[in-house]
């Protein structure tokens, strides 16, 4: 009685602690689960880009419906609404780049920003050629830009800076706003204040867009009703890393809940049919619930943040952890030394414990993975299984009534036993299976491994296509090659960006690059600004030079006095910093490409591949690296090919997963060798498991499921789960009489049924990592049981009838 109370108190206390941990945990669903814990410098840059970089903060918006002019209006209204919200740093729809504020800022700081400002530019010859060009441009209708400026800016610096800031390849514009390639949608790009990796903040940003769009639609509908006009159809589509992360989290959470409920329902039905008692069923599910909670609590404690995918993995635990209580609730019979539960603990628990240990070995091999998703799965499963087994061992016997005994499953057991006997007659056929499996794998040897990280992405193909389409319409924001410059302070980073920019300019001239962007274009280093300021001549010198420069030109030198004054002002004026740019698209440019991350200042220079010629669509990052040469001390310059890095990362994960799986297998074999003390017995336990793994992988590969990391982990789980069955056959069935054999077989098949149901449900998930796991483990677990049964040592009492 006292032990019962102690068990209960300990359980309730642990449960309470676990609930606290889980309730206070953070949940995320961004790509971080797939990113390494200890990255190389290029990987770190990649990870930071994906988590915090400007590309991660972009939300692409497409508005459709209505007519061209209407969409332009809607685009403008939505942009205005979003700009007013602090969730966004910038909202661009193609109109903002020429805002009055921008023009003013560019005009005011033109001598610090213009790339053509140099001592040569302000000699008589330089002045003359620049002024001649400005005069000529007066003739053009575009001269409306130059006309008002001529007397203050005769060398055309304002236009020069505007040109510097205009991207070479912009999106198509109609009616003044960006549109998709076919013109049927108005496009906007919103940059969130929060990093793309901050899923909660991204979700908030999406809510803001929904709200603003709802408001816009409501006002359009009202206006149409007032005018008795037909209400236009208006729709919105969103895409971008943040959108994906939010949707992925929603999908994974939804699926985790849906699939957990479904598998719980299926397993509960299976158990209710076999227990014929609601109370026994409730007791049987207690270890499962405790295990799920313990797993989540352990991950929250160990990692600080629970990844959405881990919740999905929780589903896998249901099918496994329910096995322990199934063994107890079906196998327990009262014996000479006490009640049913106590007898079970004495005679069966050691086998279950050994099975638990082998499972733990398998999952423990995932812990050192650099792939945080896998490490979380390992920890989650270990804690979950331990808790489920402990609850089964210590709490359930205490909760079962004194004279309780398991409902006999004789009839089912005997039927299974007869089936197994019949199958054993064909055991020789099993020798064929490994050869068939190897042959199948060999036939598909080119498509065994899936090497694409995107295969693990929970983003649907339709969403990926939409994203690709909007990105190609918008041109620029798809960052695939970029240079990451990291320095100890802003000035060194910008200075390095300018040096790198000069090299890139030569690559652009050579046709190896189409272009690049750099934060120094929006905010030059102070050194360069000073150099430009020093290039400006003093008033009297400038006047004298102008007199010479204007000889024969239709412009009187004395009329350019406002220019002389402006130059004098710039000479005496302060240098430009980020503060003066506030609220302009220059600031947006700086913020997008330049940031202070902790102790380091980071400048990003996205590269654009040429659209034609010998270097079309391809940037040779090795050549770019070579051209850049050595970085100055204290500065690191990394040329990053994101696609290449991501693929390399995935390949590293894959080889790691193979290594860890083999390590897990080795640990299981070692554990069995130590406990069973017989190589022959270990071989008998392991052989059916290896055979299952072979058959399942051959099946997957032959059915065109190239193996991903998660399939690989699934194979490890087959061994970890299947070892339980094999151990029962080895340890318990060898000495069992016909009755015991029937009960054992019944409990194993019911436990196996629960596992197959749990993983089988997962196989239908739309989240690739979950379905990969499900489609591997469900058939694998079944195969492991069947092979174990068929390959079990023959020659013992076969069935009750014999």
């Amino acid at each position, binding site marked *: 009685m006292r032990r019962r109370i102690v068990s209960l108190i300990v359980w309730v206390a642990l449960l309470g602690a676990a609930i606290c941990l889980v309730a206070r945990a953070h949940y995320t669903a961004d790509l971080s689960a797939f990113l390494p814990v200890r990255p190389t410098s290029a990987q770190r840059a990649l990870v930071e880009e994906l988590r915090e970089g400007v590309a991660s903060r972009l939300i692409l918006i497409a508005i459709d419906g209505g007519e061209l002019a209407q969409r332009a209006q809607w685009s403008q209204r939505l942009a205005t609404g979003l700009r007013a919200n602090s969730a966004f740093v910038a909202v661009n729809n193609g109109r903002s780049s020429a805002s009055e504020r921008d023009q003013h800022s560019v005009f005011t700081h033109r001598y610090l920003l213009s790339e053509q400002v140099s001592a040569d530019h302000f000699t008589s010859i330089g002045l003359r050629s620049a002024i001649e060009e400005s005069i000529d441009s007066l003739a053009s*209708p575009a001269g409306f830009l130059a006309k008002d400026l001529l007397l203050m800016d005769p060398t055309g610096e304002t236009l020069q800076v505007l*040109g510097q800031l205009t991207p070479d390849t912009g999106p198509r514009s109609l009616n*003044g706003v960006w549109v998709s390639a076919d013109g049927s949608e108005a496009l906007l790009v919103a940059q969130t204040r929060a990093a793309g990796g901050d899923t909660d903040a991204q979700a908030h940003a999406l809510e803001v867009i929904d709200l603003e769009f709802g408001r816009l639609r409501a006002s359009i509908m009202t206006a149409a009703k007032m005018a008795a006009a037909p209400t236009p159809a208006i729709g919105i589509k969103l895409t971008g890393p943040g959108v994906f992360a939010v949707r992925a989290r929603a999908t994974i959470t939804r699926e985790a809940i849906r699939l957990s409920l479904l598998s719980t329902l299926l397993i509960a039905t299976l158990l209710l049919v076999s227990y014929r008692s609601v109370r026994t069923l409730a007791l049987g599910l207690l270890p499962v619930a405790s295990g799920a909670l313990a797993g989540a609590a352990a991950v929250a404690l160990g990692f600080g943040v629970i990844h959405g995918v881990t919740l999905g993995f929780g589903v896998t635990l249901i099918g496994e952890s329910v096995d322990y209580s199934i063994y107890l609730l079906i196998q327990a019979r009262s014996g000479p030394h006490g009640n049913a539960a106590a007898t079970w603990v004495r005679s069966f628990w050691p086998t279950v414990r050994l099975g638990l240990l082998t499972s733990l070995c398998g999952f423990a091999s995932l812990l050192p993975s650099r792939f945080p998703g896998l490490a979380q799965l390992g920890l989650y499963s270990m804690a979950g299984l331990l808790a489920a087994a402990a609850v089964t061992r210590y709490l359930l016997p205490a909760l079962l009534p004194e004279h309780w005994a398991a409902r006999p499953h004789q009839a089912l057991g005997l039927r299974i036993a007869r089936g197994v006997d019949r199958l054993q007659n064909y055991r020789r056929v099993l020798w064929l299976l490994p050869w068939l499996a190897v042959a199948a794998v060999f036939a598909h040897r080119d498509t065994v491994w899936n090497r694409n990280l995107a295969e693990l992405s929970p983003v649907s193909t339709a969403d990926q296509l939409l994203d690709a389409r909007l990105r190609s319409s918008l041109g620029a924001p798809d960052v695939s090659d970029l240079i990451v410059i990291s320095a100890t302070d802003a000035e060194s980073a910008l200075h390095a960006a300018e040096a790198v920019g000069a090299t890139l300019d030569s690559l652009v001239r050579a046709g190896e690059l189409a272009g690049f962007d750099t934060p120094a274009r929006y905010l030059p280093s102070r050194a360069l600004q000073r150099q430009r300021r020093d290039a400006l001549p003093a008033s009297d010198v400038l006047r004298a030079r102008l007199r010479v420069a204007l000889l024969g030109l239709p412009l009187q030198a004395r009329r350019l006095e406002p220019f002389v004054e402006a130059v004098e002002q710039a000479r005496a004026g302060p240098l430009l910093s980020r503060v003066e740019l506030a609220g302009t698209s220059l600031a947006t440019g700086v913020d997008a490409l330049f940031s202070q991350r902790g102790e380091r200042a980071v400048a990003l220079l996205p590269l654009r591949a040429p659209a034609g010629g010998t270097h079309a669509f391809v940037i040779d990052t090795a050549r770019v690296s070579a051209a850049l040469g050595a970085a100055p001390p204290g500065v690191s310059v990394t040329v990053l090919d994101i696609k290449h890095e991501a693929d390399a990362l995935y390949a590293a994960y894959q080889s790691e997963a193979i290594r860890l799986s083999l390590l897990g297998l080795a640990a299981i074999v070692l554990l069995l060798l130590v406990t069973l003390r017989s190589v022959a017995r270990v071989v008998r336990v392991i052989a059916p498991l290896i055979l299952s793994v072979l058959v399942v992988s051959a099946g997957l590969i032959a059915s065109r499921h190239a193996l991903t990391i998660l399939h690989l982990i699934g194979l490890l789980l087959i061994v970890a789960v299947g070892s339980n069955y094999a151990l029962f056959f080895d340890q318990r069935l060898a000495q069992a009489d016909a009755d015991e054999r029937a009960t054992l077989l019944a409990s194993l098949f019911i436990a196996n049924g629960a596992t197959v149901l749990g993983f089988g449900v997962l196989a239908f998930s739309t989240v690739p990592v979950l379905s990969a796991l499900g489609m591997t483990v469900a058939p694998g677990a079944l195969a492991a049981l069947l092979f174990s049964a068929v390959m079990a040592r023959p020659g013992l009492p076969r069935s009750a009838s014999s």
Partner: protein
Amino acid sequence: MLLRSTGRVRRNIAALLCAGLIASGAIAAPLTDPLDQLMAVLKQRQHGHVPFTEHHVTSLLDRPIESSGELFYDAPARLEKRTTKPRSERLVLENGQLNFERRNKTYHVALADYPKAAPYIDSIRATLAGDRPALEQVFHLAFSESGADWVLALTPLDAHLAAELVAIRIDGSSAEIRTVSVQWVNGDRSVMTLGTSLDP
């Protein structure tokens, strides 16, 4: 030579007009307003390609500047001006969007962002398109004709615009625009003279 080609253009226009009427099955009441008649004729045109010379007088400079090049028009919303002298420049007005290319750099400008310049730039396109409502949104129209020749004078309705722009005067003959003259309040003025069609 000049006369002959003008004659051919006129015959083409007449043929086009007939074709348009037949195609639309229009036997509707004849347009009585002479400006409407002109607009209807202008509206028939789908493409245009003519040379131009432009003469600018501005108080900023001691002497006028001359420029020349070619104009391209595609009904109803695309107008391209390719200047070859004194410096090459390409300017495309399309659906309210102005793109201009100079020194291998393209600038994108929304007409709506330049309320002062927009009416002047769009007036040529709207006239070519026979888009009377668009013109009347911004200008008061005065139309007179004598034989085949006609004059369309545009004076701004909006006070802000009137503070800058005095008037735009478009001279033409039949379906051809001959000159576009612009007079600014500060005394600046320009005259653009269009040549005959360069299309074969």
